[in-house]
């Protein structure tokens, strides 16, 4: 009796597990008979055997529900630069497909999302890497060691997995190993479009719930230079999310995801979601007052980002608009962010919080960045910075001051991560500025780099 009971419990737990992970074995014999074209059905049925993981994702997606199938996104016109007949299912027919699916495809049904995205800082993520010589030199010369056998590896495995790169095609119109696969949010495609919706809504499920969880952002927004995920975890918002976030509701319709579905905000709530009277937006820069990533934090009064516009109109790589934000400027941006806060907090709570966080940004600008920059400029003018800056102690400390601890200090303050605002932030900075002063005074006195 006990044996039978245990056996049935084991069997039911196996079934439960299988149901939860998506039953790949059933995908293999998938037979679709719904309002899809003949070709659409045959793609799904064949790929259920060939690539069951992809079809499993699709069958759990909203696209699957509304009858948007493989070919609706992967089919391209014969004259597309990406057109191939690499799949045996379409070889010899008049159907051409592309493995790459670009924002031009997504915007056929989601035009506002793509437009807002392209006007945000995310839009320039890939373009600016090409426009900044320093970044090119860092990837290829300093990190890539100019090794002819491993060309592009630093870029392909690291940088562009977040930033995105120009996808290049081989002779067969299929992407090259140096440029694909990538998840870069600013990917630049052969059809001229920019962006990568799959960075947050991963293939082929394109889940809104997934994009609303902090994990969507934290594959890029982590680490020593912008530990946004860690800062979030350090905040009370992250504390609540980590304690009970697995019980929240993440799949409410856009603009209808409100407190009650969750008890604390995730990244998406503050930076993108429609909440209260606020409209949902894919412009992640829109609600930001400062550019906290820059060497010196400036107010975001520059309007929308223009890198994608320049790329489309002039075909040029550009650094974009470092003070891009709300089209009506930083005051409007902050007002919108305060509206987010007011869904849960009192006005006094919100105002007091931002007053002190803003002061921490000003403290960084005035007491750390500006004096450091002044010393750097003076040394440079006197030829007292080494030709290869990465061998120069002053340059290294200066770089870490703004790019690492300086960002942590500011981002920690504005996202309420005390350990980052303080120990990983301003505490490190007060050490750095002393170090810089020491090197500066020594070099000015001796007139040489030791």
């Amino acid at each position: 009796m006990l044996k039978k009971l245990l056996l049935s419990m084991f069997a039911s737990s196996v079934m439960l597990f299988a149901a939860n992970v998506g039953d790949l074995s059933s995908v293999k014999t998938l037979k679709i008979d719904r309002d899809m074209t003949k070709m659409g059905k045959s793609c799904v049925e064949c790929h259920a055997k060939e690539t069951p993981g992809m079809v499993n994702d699709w069958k759990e997606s909203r696209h699957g529900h509304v009858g948007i199938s493989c070919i609706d996104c992967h089919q391209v016109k014969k004259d597309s630069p990406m057109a191939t007949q690499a799949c045996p299912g379409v070889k010899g027919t008049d159907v051409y497909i592309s493995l790459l699916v670009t924002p031009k495809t997504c915007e056929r049904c989601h035009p506002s999302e793509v437009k807002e995205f392209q006007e945000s800082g995310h839009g320039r993520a890939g373009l600016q890497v090409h426009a900044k010589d320093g970044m090119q030199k860092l990837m290829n010369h300093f990190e890539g060691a100019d090794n002819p056998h491993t060309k592009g590896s630093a870029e392909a495995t690291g940088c562009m997995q977040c930033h995105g790169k120009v996808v290049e095609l081989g002779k067969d119109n299929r992407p090259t190993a140096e440029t694909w696969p990538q998840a870069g949010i600013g990917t630049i495609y052969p059809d001229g479009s920019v962006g990568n919706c799959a960075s947050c809504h991963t293939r082929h499920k394109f889940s809104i719930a997934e994009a609303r969880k902090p994990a969507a952002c934290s594959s890029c927004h982590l680490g020593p230079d912008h530990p946004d995920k860690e800062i979030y975890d350090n905040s009370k918002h992250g504390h609540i999310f980590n304690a009970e976030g697995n019980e929240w509701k993440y799949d409410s319709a856009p603009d209808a995801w409100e407190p009650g579905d969750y008890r604390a905000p995730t990244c998406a709530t503050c930076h993108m979601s429609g909440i209260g009277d606020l409209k949902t937006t894919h412009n992640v820069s829109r609600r930001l007052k400062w550019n906290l990533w820059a060497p010196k934090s400036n107010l975001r009064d520059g309007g929308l980002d223009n890198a994608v516009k320049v790329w489309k109109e002039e075909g040029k790589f550009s650094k974009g608009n470092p003070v891009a934000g709300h089209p009506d400027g930083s005051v409007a941006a902050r007002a919108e962010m305060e509206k987010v806060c007011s869904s849960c907090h009192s006005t006094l709570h919100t105002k007091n919080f931002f007053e002190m966080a803003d002061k921490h940004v000003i403290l960084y600008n005035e007491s750390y960045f500006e004096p450091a920059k002044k010393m750097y400029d003076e040394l440079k003018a006197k030829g007292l910075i080494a030709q290869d800056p990465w061998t120069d102690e002053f340059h290294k400390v200066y770089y870490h001051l703004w790019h690492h601890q300086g960002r942590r200090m500011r981002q920690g303050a504005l996202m309420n991560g005390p350990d980052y605002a303080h120990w990983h932030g301003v505490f490190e900075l007060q050490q750095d500025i002393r170090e810089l002063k020491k090197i500066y005074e020594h070099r000015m006195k001796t007139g040489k780099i030791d």
Partner: protein
Amino acid sequence: MEEIKKSKSKVIVPLSLVIVGLILGLIISFGSSIGVKHTSDKNYCSSCHTMQPVTNSYKMDVHGGAGKHGIEVKCVYCHLPQDSMANYLTTKVKTGLHDLYAEYFKDTSKIDWQAMREHRESFTYDSACLNCHTNLKDSTESNLKALIAHRKYFSKTTDKTCVGCHQNVGHKDLGLYLPKN
């Protein structure tokens, strides 16, 4: 006698003027309607050498008669606005004069056709597309793809135009026909 003559001429002169005017008006309007018709289809448009690639790709397209039913949509149905007669005619005269000028006084071999495709919004008109595709607006879940893809367009929450998404509609595989730069 004199008076009768005078009163006769008083009637006859304006009357004959009206009749002459009517005839002239008929001739002119008949002539211009023939002219408008004559300058509207592929035969006239493709009489310029420059227009050959677009005509060839058009002939291969559903809009150019290559569909199941052989319906041919004239060049001007898409390339002139269909919202009002006045707008239609003024745009026709303007673009017609521009094309004539370009054909005879400019070096047409220097036209960057691939780049021009990026400005397709400026020489096609949504009013033209919607003149025929009227049912799109009323599509429901019976035609899900049409409903979902066009919902934002008809609710005016996007500034995308028809050719913003349907890039070489009317000209099948246009990129293969146009000269590469």
